[in-house]
């Protein structure tokens, strides 16, 4: 990881991403997944990153979470450079990530178990987070007995149980239907407001981004750069009813203007790649 940037982290910012660039070497040469991305998040802020498929959102998620190294630029948490996974960052993944061999309660207690907290105490703590995500009464169930939305709430509770300073989420509700997604958005907002949880959400869903965020960062299609930052000045506390307001529609339209162009580029790029692959055959 190179650190060619001299700027000192601002004390008001909990997370700083400074000039991050990541290239992957493939059979077709080097591909720049994210290019010179910089932004910061203040404590308690909810920021979403939105972009078309293939814009490097998940790469950025993995870089900030410390799962991918060997990139240019730097990521800092409260001024401390992140190299590898960082205890202040809790991650919620896009894919279903609960442990199928553990009950809901045991899943949520997992980070406490790793931290060496005695069983009784960790289960009591886990109960608290299980009820926070609205799953009281399901503690002894196994993930296979739950719906997709419930399993994602278990994953969220598990991450919250580690009490991260920054909650990092990669399209956690992508596999859910729109109604469930909106209602889970309410739950996330409620928790975020209750815990004053600094949150970075990676998403490709416009409604979700505007519903939940204080700021939305719009990314370009490959290579992923920051195209625009949109501040969302909708009143707090918010819930899913906000989606029917005029202001909400205005923000969605505004972001869609930027996103549409990038999504169209993505589709054209996909088509030309398919055609090229066909021609090679």
């Amino acid at each position, binding site marked *: 990881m190179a650190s060619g940037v001299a700027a000192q982290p601002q004390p008001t910012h909990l997370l700083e991403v400074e000039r991050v660039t990541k290239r992957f070497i493939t059979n077709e040469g080097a591909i720049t997944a994210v290019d010179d991305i910089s932004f910061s998040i203040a404590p308690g802020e909810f920021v979403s990153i939105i972009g078309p498929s293939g814009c490097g959102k998940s790469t950025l998620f993995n870089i900030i979470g410390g799962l991918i190294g060997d990139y240019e630029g730097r990521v800092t948490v409260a001024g401390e450079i992140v190299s590898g*996974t960082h205890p202040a960052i809790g991650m919620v993944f896009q894919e279903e990530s609960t*442990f199928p061999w553990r009950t809901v309660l045991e899943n949520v207690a997992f980070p406490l178990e790793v931290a060496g907290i005695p069983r009784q105490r960790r289960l009591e703590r886990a109960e608290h987070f299980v009820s926070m995500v609205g799953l009281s009464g399901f503690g002894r169930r196994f993930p296979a007995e739950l719906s997709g939305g419930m399993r994602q709430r278990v994953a969220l509770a598990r991450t919250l149980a580690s009490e991260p300073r920054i909650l990092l989420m990669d399209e956690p509700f992508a596999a859910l239907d729109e109604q469930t997604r909106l209602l889970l958005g309410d739950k996330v907002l409620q928790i975020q407001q209750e815990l004053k949880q600094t949150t970075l959400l990676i998403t490709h869903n416009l409604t979700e981004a505007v519903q939940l965020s204080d700021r939305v960062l719009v990314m370009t299609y490959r290579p992923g750069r920051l195209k625009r930052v949109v501040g969302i000045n909708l009143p707090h506390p918010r819930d899913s009813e906000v989606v029917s307001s005029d202001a909400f529609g205005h923000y969605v339209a505004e972001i869609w203007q930027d996103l549409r162009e990038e999504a169209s580029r993505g589709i054209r790029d996909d088509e030309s790649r398919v055609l090229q692959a066909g021609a090679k055959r």
Partner: protein
Amino acid sequence: MTLKAWARSRGGARVLGAVTVVALIAGVEALIRAGFINRFIVPLPSQILAAIPRIIVEENVLHRFWQTAQEILWASLLLAAVGISLGALLHRFRILRLACETWVAALAAAPIVLMYPLFLVIFGRSATTIVMIGFAAGLAPVILKTVEGLSGTRRVLIDVGRSFRLSPAQQFWKILLPAALPSVFVGLKLGLIFAMINIVGVEFLINFGGLGQLINELAERYDLPGTYGAICFVILASIVFFDVTERLERWLRPSE
């Protein structure tokens, strides 16, 4: 519970299984009595049933059953300890896996029982020889299925472990191994089958130990009902060990 629901339940399946076995035995009895099967080669099932109390009293079959069960138990413990450890090692070091996996797969097909003279030379005419042949015969599937299970762990579960900053040992014990358990148990069950066949086979061949030796002696005396009766105890040993393995799996993976 309605009859339809009962028929679909676990209890229903058990009753159906038992009825099928009884029907098959009754069918064989009928075929022998009707002269379709030579009764000097295959004794009547009723004669076999009648021979069981006799071999329990006269041939000390329960003691022999216990001897064979102990050999199977030791072979199983060795299979679990060594097989899973070797599988984990092959999974951890890619170079080892690339170098050895084909050889391990070849070992699964090797007729290890034919190497019993070599084992006799090394371990003598003892229970150790029998246990070691059973262990060697069952090792390959345990290793292969352990490697398969560990390699098949979903990437996201490993990433969850990384995000919680698990040490490599915690990553193995708390994520990789539990995730691989269904596949590991398939390997253990296969290994157990190979081990049991070989244990009883070697007992028979070297005329030493438990049920295999008894089968040998009864066959030498041309006591066919007694021979088949002793084979019933081998089947009983197989059922007991399979049941224990399944209970162990359910205990370790209650969600399955």
